[in-house]
């Protein structure tokens, strides 16, 4: 009875609706799983914005919600990059902020008052649910198998390569950009298949949204023209391709130019020129096709290719000429570093200093994608077997993004979608072959063999297929096992590696209970409470956004690294002697200097470990004042203990990090736990700065810049004088003003 009722459900027209319903339920479950697995950080810690860049996005969103869209568009921010300021409205990708602003207002309209912070925290998980759905649509375009789309959606939902950028609280551009990337590609495939203006225009619209959201839109800008170019070279030009590409390009380019930050780049920058070139090419091809309709003859093919070659040569020559004469901006530095991995280290240390711009280590592929990475080539192979227009797209995408992911850790994000598609194609092919294929009818087999016996043995076609239950069971079970292991791996990676807010640190106590280290917020809150509203804080640029967001104080440099010289100035101030640094600090109105020091706790991401980058960036601008070699010992070691070089010991950063640090330890036993070395017995002496605040675990240390001495002495003399006086009268309170009254 049970079987028959299932048969009723699964066969015929009611079966179709049942399957449709099941599919919707499965998709919703996948989306829910995608959202849920990103909530570890909210549950473990709290609803808080993570890391660095999200703090700026959060601050900008708050500004947008408070001041409205137009003042956001014209926002000049005088609280960053002091004294330059930043035309924030014109130099950011507004998509993310506008999206959450719109959501905020819609919820308000529905009388659901949700704090903007919670919207920002939960935006990334919500969009990852949408990404899973978009992935389903994209993969369904690639394969007729019903399981491929669902598998791809499930992979996309939980694969760590994507979760790494979209946990709750990771309020960054990538949070919505990956959804837009996948959805734009889906629309593009749809447009190529149907050849309708509407799909092309929709592609352009979502492309425009993508441009407003993430700088990675250049990937789409180059991938789609490449797809079209390859199709043309394969002789697959059709009106469908013409319609979809030209519609996309004409509308998409205009759309992208609406974003002030992008502006005229699409027609000036070389990164975008391939799209323009293919646009011109496809016009010529279309015109040639048009003429062909009127000119009979097979030699037309020759005419066509010669024309294409001629125009391509002309276009390339013109591009080179324009690039040389400077009409078109040269390739941007980030782009060069994509081709030549050593480029950034030599020419632009600031790009190389960002850890996510480093080349990918190979275990990262397995760590982020698990068993998908070995299904990936199989999926690409399946695409070669079918090789329709959309499969060409998958192949191109796979090749390009594998290369890019190998060059930059960050671009693993663009590789993840295509790996999910290809792996789902491969896996669904395996499952379809091993699950669905039923045993052929024995009579038919007998008849076939009877016919075969008449013909030659070699011309017989044996009935090939996997019919034995044993092999079916083995393969299906092992695949299910891999899938289960994949889920376990994803959950483990998400909970252990990607769910830490990095603003709040967690460690385990000896008894296993969690111990929260909240030094960052402690220090930023101290700044907010104890300093005047416009006190300028100098720190290394990593902490600029956090200071702006949490402490609400003006900063000199921040994570929007648009002005290399200004950053180098800060680097120079940090890496020079006090006598050199103090005038720089005075010139920039610096009131407080903030350093991050992990020596007590063993927190390895501190400023002393980043110090060499400060030196390198400063050296890039002042090569005759700062030299990286001076910070290494004669044997070429980077040391901070007794044997550190004098330049190192006298640098402001070194002094600020270790000032008074030995007072925590018995005499002569001060230990730096990050670098694992014993420190000099005496604390470094600071003349021009005074300690203002040190957080509980010494992670953040804040120093106040002293005012000019009242008697016109320089600071070292003043300090020496105070010390000399203090030695005589131990009962007196310290401080120059007390002395002066006598």
């Amino acid at each position, binding site marked *: 009875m049970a079987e028959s009722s299932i048969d009723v459900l699964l066969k015929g027209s009611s079966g179709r609706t049942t399957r449709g319903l099941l599919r919707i339920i499965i998709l919703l479950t996948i989306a829910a799983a995608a959202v849920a697995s990103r909530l570890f950080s909210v549950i473990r810690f709290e609803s808080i914005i993570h890391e660095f860049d999200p703090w700026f996005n959060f601050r900008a969103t708050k500004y947008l919600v408070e001041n409205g869209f137009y003042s956001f568009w014209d926002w000049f921010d005088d609280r960053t990059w002091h004294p330059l300021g930043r035309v924030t409205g014109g130099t950011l990708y507004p998509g993310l902020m506008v999206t959450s602003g719109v959501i905020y207002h819609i919820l308000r309209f529905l009388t659901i008052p949700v704090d903007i912070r919670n919207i920002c925290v939960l935006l990334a998980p919500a969009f990852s649910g949408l990404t899973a759905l978009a992935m389903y649509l994209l993969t369904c375009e690639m394969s007729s198998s019903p399981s491929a789309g669902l598998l791809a959606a499930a992979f996309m939902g939980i694969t760590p390569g994507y979760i790494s950028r979209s946990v709750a609280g990771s309020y960054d551009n990538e949070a919505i950009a990956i959804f837009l990337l996948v959805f734009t590609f889906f629309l593009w495939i749809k447009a190529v298949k149907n050849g309708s*203006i509407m799909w092309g225009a929709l592609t352009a619209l979502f492309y425009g949204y993508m441009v407003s959201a993430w700088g990675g839109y250049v990937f789409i800008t180059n991938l789609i023209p490449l797809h079209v170019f390859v199709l043309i070279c394969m002789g697959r030009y059709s*009106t469908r391709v013409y*319609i979809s590409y030209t519609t996309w390009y004409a509308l998409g380019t205009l759309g992208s130019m609406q974003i002030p930050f992008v502006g005229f780049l699409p027609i000036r920058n070389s990164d975008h020129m391939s799209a323009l070139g293919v646009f011109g090419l496809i016009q010529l091809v279309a015109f040639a096709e048009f003429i062909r309709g009127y000119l009979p003859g*097979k030699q037309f093919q020759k005419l066509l290719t010669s024309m294409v070659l001629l125009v391509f040569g002309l276009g390339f020559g013109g591009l080179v000429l324009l690039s040389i004469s400077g009409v078109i901006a040269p390739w941007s530095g980030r782009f060069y570093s994509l081709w030549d991995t050593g480029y950034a280290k030599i020419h632009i240390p600031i790009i190389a200093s960002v850890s996510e711009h480093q080349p990918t280590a190979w275990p990262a592929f397995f760590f982020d994608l698990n068993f998908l990475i070995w299904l990936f080539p199989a999926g690409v192979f399946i695409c070669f077997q079918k090789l329709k227009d959309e499969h060409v797209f998958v192949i191109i995408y796979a090749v390009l993004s594998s290369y890019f992911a190998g060059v930059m850790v960050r671009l693993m994000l663009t590789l993840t979608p295509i790996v999910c598609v290809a792996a789902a194609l491969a896996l669904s092919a395996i499952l379809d072959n091993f699950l669905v294929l039923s045993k052929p009818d024995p009579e038919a087999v007998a008849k076939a063999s009877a016919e075969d016996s008449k013909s030659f043995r070699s011309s017989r076609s044996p009935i090939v297929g996997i019919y034995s239950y044993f092999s079916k069971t083995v393969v299906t079970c092992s695949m299910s096992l891999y899938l289960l292991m994949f889920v376990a791996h994803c959950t483990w990676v998400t909970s252990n590696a990607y769910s830490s807010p990095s603003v709040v640190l967690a460690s385990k106590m000896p008894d296993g209970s969690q111990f929260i280290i909240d030094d960052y917020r402690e220090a930023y809150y101290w700044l907010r409470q104890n300093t005047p509203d416009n006190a300028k804080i100098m720190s290394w640029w990593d902490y600029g956004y956090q200071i702006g967001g949490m402490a609400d104080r003006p900063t000199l440099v921040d994570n929007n690294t648009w002005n290399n010289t200004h950053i180098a100035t800060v680097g120079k101030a940090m890496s020079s002697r006090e006598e050199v640094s103090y005038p720089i600090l005075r010139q920039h109105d610096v009131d407080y200097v903030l350093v991050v020091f992990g020596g007590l706790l063993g927190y390895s991401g501190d400023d002393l470990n980043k110090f060499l980058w400060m030196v390198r960036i400063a050296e890039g601008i002042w090569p005759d004042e700062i030299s990286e070699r001076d910070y290494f010992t004669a044997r070429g070691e980077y040391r901070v203990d007794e044997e550190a070089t004098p330049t190192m010991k006298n640098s402001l950063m070194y002094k600020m990090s270790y000032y008074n640090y030995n007072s925590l330890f018995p005499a002569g036993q001060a230990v730096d736990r990050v670098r694992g070395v014993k420190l000099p017995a005496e604390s470094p002496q600071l003349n021009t700065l005074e300690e203002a605040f040190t957080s509980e675990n010494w992670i953040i240390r804040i120093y106040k810049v002293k005012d000019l001495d009242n008697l016109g002495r320089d600071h070292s003399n003043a300090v020496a004088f105070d010390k000399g006086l203090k030695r005589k009268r131990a009962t007196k309170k310290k401080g120059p003003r007390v002395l002066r009254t006598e």
Partner: protein
Amino acid sequence: MPAKRHAASTTSASTASTPATLSSGPATLKTNASAAQIAQHVWQQYLTTTPQRTMLLDAFMAFLVLIGGLQFLYCVLAGNYPFNAFLSGFCAAVGQFVLTASLRMQTSDDSRAVTSKPSSKGKNARFADEDVEEEGPGISHERAFADYIFGSLILHFFCINFIN
């Protein structure tokens, strides 16, 4: 449509050697006169085989090419000072050209198939074979036109927004 004709003659002139051999028997290279003849031939064929509705689209496209060319000429000669305005004007011309070309492709594919009876299709004729269209795998004329309107609306919205 002067622009179209001009374009046709230039391409055939640049590659005069190949089409000359295939259109008129003799294998020897022809002079410019023959290239003009070919252009003439193409032009005549175009006039006879194209339905009037498509020719209307072609006229519009030629007009757009003219507009775009004029703007580009102005930009080259008189400088590109209001660059936003130039760009949006030029992009509007190019975009509209491209959209119209797409519309033309979508609507004239089947008319090319029925070129055996090249009677000019009027509006009534279009309504007559609309049912036939919808059965086929392609896109119906109405759908194509609606798409065209949709694309044009977006295009002009962007242009007006960009013009400053």
